[in-house]
């Protein structure tokens, strides 16, 4: 009963915040909407008993990605510039496509017997986080995707620094 209440409340807050994130002309407000949505996702993860991922969600998404987004909004703006209209000329088509996609996804979920049938509820093992850690470095488990992901992160790190730095000329321009 409490779980249902928390779920409905979280889902409502999340969806309103997501609408703020895509509709607000002021992009700093939009980023705040995104932060609230990300927190809502963390709450849903707790309801799903994925505790490690709920914490990771807060640390990685709310702590790092949201801050990066706020930074880049503020770095790519002139001081005091008007926000103006933030949608492009084809936004009605975007609304049509997004609405159609959502309706079709909803119909799919509704018509799918496996989803509405209540599966025999199994409990999550208490040592799930330890199992996840072991599976990530297990040669018979997921060590290859894990290592590929770490190489991807390293490549992204170096690439991001290289692209954003822009060489000595940009550095001189920035100093005036």
């Amino acid at each position, binding site marked *: 009963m409490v779980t249902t209440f928390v779920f409905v409340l979280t889902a409502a807050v999340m969806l309103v915040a997501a609408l703020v994130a895509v509709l607000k002309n002021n992009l700093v407000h939009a980023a705040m909407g995104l932060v609230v949505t990300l927190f809502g996702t963390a709450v849903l*993860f707790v309801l799903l008993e994925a505790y490690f991922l709920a914490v990771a969600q807060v640390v990685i998404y709310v702590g790092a990605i949201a801050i990066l987004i706020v930074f880049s909004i503020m770095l790519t703006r002139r001081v005091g510039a008007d926000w103006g209209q933030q949608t492009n000329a084809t936004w009605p088509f975007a609304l049509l496509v997004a609405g159609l996609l*959502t309706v079709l996804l*909803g119909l799919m979920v509704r018509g799918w017997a496996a989803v509405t049938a209540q599966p025999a509820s199994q409990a999550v093992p208490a040592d799930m986080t330890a199992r996840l850690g072991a599976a990530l470095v297990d040669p018979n488990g997921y060590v290859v995707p894990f290592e590929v992901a770490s190489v991807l992160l390293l490549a992204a790190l170096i690439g991001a620094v290289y692209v954003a730095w822009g060489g000595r000329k940009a550095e001189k321009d920035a100093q005036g």
Partner: protein
Amino acid sequence: MIPLSWYLIVAALLFGIGVYGVLARKNAVAILIGLELMFNAVLVNVLAFWRYLQPTGTAGLVFAVIIFAVAAAEVAVGLALFIAVYRRFGSSDVDDINLLKW
């Protein structure tokens, strides 16, 4: 327990809102915000399926961890690109980035 379909419907709505953000927004960072909403919808779906269909296995959690890493890499590279683009064009609106013409 909350039915699985509730999670899926919330995720579908979140994904739809994200799609609208990606398609309708003019500013590149706002497009990235839409992308993050879509990533989160997928994460909710992955973990809901893990919890309801295979809670004793680790496959769903590992998928979610890899999605986290890919999302972080995508945001880092994307924002670096936007800063480089802003330096070159003086704007981060995708309408203004028109090097390719036809």
